[in-house]
C-alpha cells in the first residue's frame, strides 16, 4: 500500500477512515515505504528539547509528541513527498543552550525547518534565533502571552492561547451561576498565571468576588499553608493555576483539610492522565475540571492514529498521554500542511502563508493564526473527571459533543462506581 501525499484536509480524512490499526501497521514499516522509489532527500527539522533540568519531565513528553508525529507523517507520505527526519538536541532547560542549539540546527545542520521547545521561557530566546535567520517557529507548548507581545512575525502557536484557556469555564460560570466568592491560587509562572488572571478579570466584571487570591512561587514544595488559606475561605468554587505536581499536592492538601468545593478547576494536572489518577487516587477525581486544548477521544484528523501510535510506542492507555504530546504533534501537523500547500521549503513563503489566514487542522482542532501568531481558531475545552473517565464538558455548542457538566462535586473519595 502506498499513500501519496495529501494536500487537502478532505483527503486526509479519508485516510482517517482507515482505522488506527492500519496507521500503526504503517508506522512499523512506514520508514521504508517512501524510500521504495528513488529515496528523496529527507526534510530535516531541528527541535531543542529539555532532557535534563527543571523541564525534563515535560521535555521528554514533548519529544515523544514530535517523534510520534514524524512517524505518522512519514507513514502519510512525509512532507512534499520527502521523509521527515527530526534532529533533537537537549537544552538542559537552559536558555543559553537553547540559543546555541537553534543556531546549530539552522547554521550547521542547515535543517529545513525548526519547531518549538518546551515552555514559554525557552520559546522566547528560541524564536529570536529563528527570526534572525528568517525561519518560521511553529510551536504548541510555549504560548505565554509574552511570546507574542514582542512583534516577532515568525512565531506561531498551534494551541489555544494561554490567556483564554480558563475563560471558557469563566463564561459558562457567569452564564449559569449567581455571582459568588471564588478562591484563586496560582503559581507564579508566565504561562499559568495569565490563565487565572484572565478568568478572574472576566469573572470580576460579572460580579464575582475573590474569597482569596494567592500567588505562590514556582519552587514551593509545601502547599499546606496555601491549601489552608483556600480552604479557610470556604469558597464553593476554587480556580487553581497549578502545574501538574503542585496540583496533585494541592488536591491532597484539600482532602486532608476536608475542604470540598462544589467546583474545582485546575489549570493543569488533571489533564495528565495516569499521572494524575495515580497521584491523587482515582476515587478523588470526581468532578475535577481542567481546561485543555485537546480531547483524547476526539475525531480531529490524526488524533486516533496518534493515540494508537502513542500507546503502541510508549505503552499505557489513552489517559496516560501527557498534553504536551498532542501539542507537539499538532505543531508538526500544521507545519506539514502549510509546507505542502506552499510547495517549497522556503521559510519566507511559509511565513507569509501562515499569516494569510489559512485554516489548518490538527489533533487539537482547527488552527488559524491571528496577526500576532496566536491561534485564533482554537476553542479551549474544559474537561471533567466523571466516574473515573476524563470527559469534555465545555464549551457548549462547540463542534464536539460534550457530556453534561457536573455542577456539584461529591465528597472526596466517593467517585461513583469506583
Amino acid at each position, binding site marked *: 500500500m502506498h499513500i501519496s501525499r495529501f494536500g487537502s484536509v478532505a483527503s486526509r480524512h479519508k485516510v482517517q477512515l482507515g482505522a488506527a490499526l492500519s496507521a500503526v501497521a504503517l508506522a512499523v514499516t512506514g520508514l521504508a515505504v517512501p524510500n521504495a522509489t528513488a529515496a528523496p532527500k529527507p526534510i530535516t527539522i531541528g527541535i531543542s528539547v529539555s532532557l*535534563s533540568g527543571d523541564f525534563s519531565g515535560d521535555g521528554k513528553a514533548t519529544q515523544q509528541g514530535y517523534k510520534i508525529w514524524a512517524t505518522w507523517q512519514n507513514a502519510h507520505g512525509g512532507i512534499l513527498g520527502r521523509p521527515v527526519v527530526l534532529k533533537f538536541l537537549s537544552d538542559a532547560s537552559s536558555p543559553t543552550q537553547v540559543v546555541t542549539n537553534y543556531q546549530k540546527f539552522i547554521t550547521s545542520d542547515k535543517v529545513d525547518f525548526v519547531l518549538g521547545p518546551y515552555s514559554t521561557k525557552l520559546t522566547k530566546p528560541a524564536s529570536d534565533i529563528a527570526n534572525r535567520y528568517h525561519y518560521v517557529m511553529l510551536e504548541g507548548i510555549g504560548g505565554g502571552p509574552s511570546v507574542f507581545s514582542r512583534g516577532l512575525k515568525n512565531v506561531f502557536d498551534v494551541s489555544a492561547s494561554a490567556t483564554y484557556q480558563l475563560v471558557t469555564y469563566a463564561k459558562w460560570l457567569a452564564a449559569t451561576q449567581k455571582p459568588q466568592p471564588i478562591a484563586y491560587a496560582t503559581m507564579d509562572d508566565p504561562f499559568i498565571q495569565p490563565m487565572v488572571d484572565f478568568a478572574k478579570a472576566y469573572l470580576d466584571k460579572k460580579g464575582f468576588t475573590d474569597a482569596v487570591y494567592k500567588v505562590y512561587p514556582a519552587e514551593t514544595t*509545601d502547599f*499546606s499553608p496555601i491549601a*489552608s488559606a483556600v480552604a*479557610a475561605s470556604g469558597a464553593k468554587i476554587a480556580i487553581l493555576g497549578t502545574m501538574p*505536581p503542585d496540583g*496533585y499536592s494541592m488536591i491532597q492538601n484539600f482532602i486532608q483539610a476536608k475542604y470540598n468545593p462544589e467546583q474545582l478547576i485546575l489549570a493543569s494536572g488533571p489533564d495528565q492522565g495516569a499521572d494524575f489518577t495515580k497521584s491523587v487516587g482515582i476515587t478523588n477525581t470526581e468532578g475535577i475540571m481542567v481546561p485543555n486544548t485537546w480531547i483524547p477521544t476526539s475525531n480531529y484528523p490524526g488524533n486516533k492514529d496518534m493515540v494508537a501510535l502513542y500507546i503502541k510506542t510508549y505503552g499505557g492507555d489513552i489517559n496516560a498521554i501527557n498534553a504536551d504530546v498532542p501539542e507537539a504533534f499538532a505543531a508538526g501537523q500544521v507545519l506539514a500542511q502549510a509546507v505542502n500547500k506552499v510547495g517549497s521549503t522556503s521559510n519566507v513563503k511559509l511565513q507569509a502563508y501562515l499569516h494569510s489566514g489559512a485554516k489548518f487542522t490538527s489533533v487539537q482542532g482547527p488552527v488559524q493564526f491571528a496577526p500576532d501568531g496566536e491561534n485564533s481558531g482554537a476553542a479551549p475545552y474544559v474537561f471533567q473527571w466523571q466516574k473515573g473517565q476524563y470527559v469534555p464538558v465545555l464549551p457548549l455548542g462547540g463542534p464536539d459533543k460534550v457530556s453534561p457538566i457536573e455542577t456539584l462535586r461529591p465528597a472526596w473519595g466517593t467517585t461513583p462506581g469506583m
Partner: protein
Amino acid sequence: MLVLQAIIEGVLVGGFYALMAAGLTLVFGVMDIVNFAIGALIVLGAYLSYSITTHFHIDPFVSLIFTTPLMTALGMFIYVFLIKPIKTNKVVMSLLTMFAVATLIEGILDICYNSGFVQIHASYINNSLRIGKLNFPLIYVLSFLLSAFLLSCLYLVTYRTKFGRSLRASMQNPVAARLVGIDTDRVSMITLGIGIGLAAIGGMIFGTTNAFNASSSYDIISRLLVIVILGGFGSVGGALVAAIFMLVIQDVVAVVWSPVWGSTAFYMILMLVLLVRPQGLFGKKGVRAQ
C-alpha cells in the same frame, strides 16, 4: 484560626526539615563539610521508597527498613572514596565534590525513572485528624512523629552511646579524640553514613507529601542550608528550633500575606539574624586569636 492552622502546619513540616537538617549539621560538625548533595540524596531516597512501594506493595514507612541501610552504606562509600582523599582546601573541595555527586545522582535518576512526576502512595495518605476547627493531615502527623522519634534516637545515640561520645569528642577536639583511641576517620565515615541515611527517611516523607522528579532537589537544599546556618553548624537542637521557627514564620506570612513573600521572609530572617549574631542563633563563637 487560619494563623493557628499555619502554625501547626509549620511545626509539623518543620519537624521533617529538622530531621534533614540534623543530618547536614552533624556532617558539618564532625567533618567541616557542607553536604551539598543532600537535596539529590533526599530525592534518591524518595525514589527508592517509591520503587519499593510500587513493586512490592509495601507500606512506605516499612520501605525504610531497606532504603535506610542502603543509603547509609552509600554515605560511607562516598566518604571513603571521595571525601577522605581530599587533602587541601577541604571546605570548598568537599562542597564541589558533593555537588558533583548530586549531578551524578540526578543524571542516573533521570535515566532510571524517565523524569515524570511521581508520588509515593499509601491508603491513609489523604486522611487527616480533626480537632475542633483545626486540621492535622495524617501523613504530616506521622512524618512529624517519625522525625521526632528519629531526632530523639539521634539524641540518644549522640548522648547515650559510646559511638555518640566518640562523635561528640571528635567534634570538640579531634587531636585529643585520637589520643583516647578514637578512630576519627571511622567516626567521620559513620557520621556521613548517618547523615545520608537520614536522607533516605527524609526522602520517603518528601515523596509522600510531594510529587517529585529527578530535578526536585534544588528546592530543598537552600532551605536546609539556611536552617543549618541559623541553628548553628553542628547543633542538632539548634537545627530543630531553627527549622520549626523558620517554617512557622514562612507559613504564617504565606497565609496572612502571600506565599511568595513567605519564601522571601524565610531568607530575610536569616539575613537579619546574622546581622545581629554572625554565628547563628545557637552557634558558639569559635574565633581564637592564636
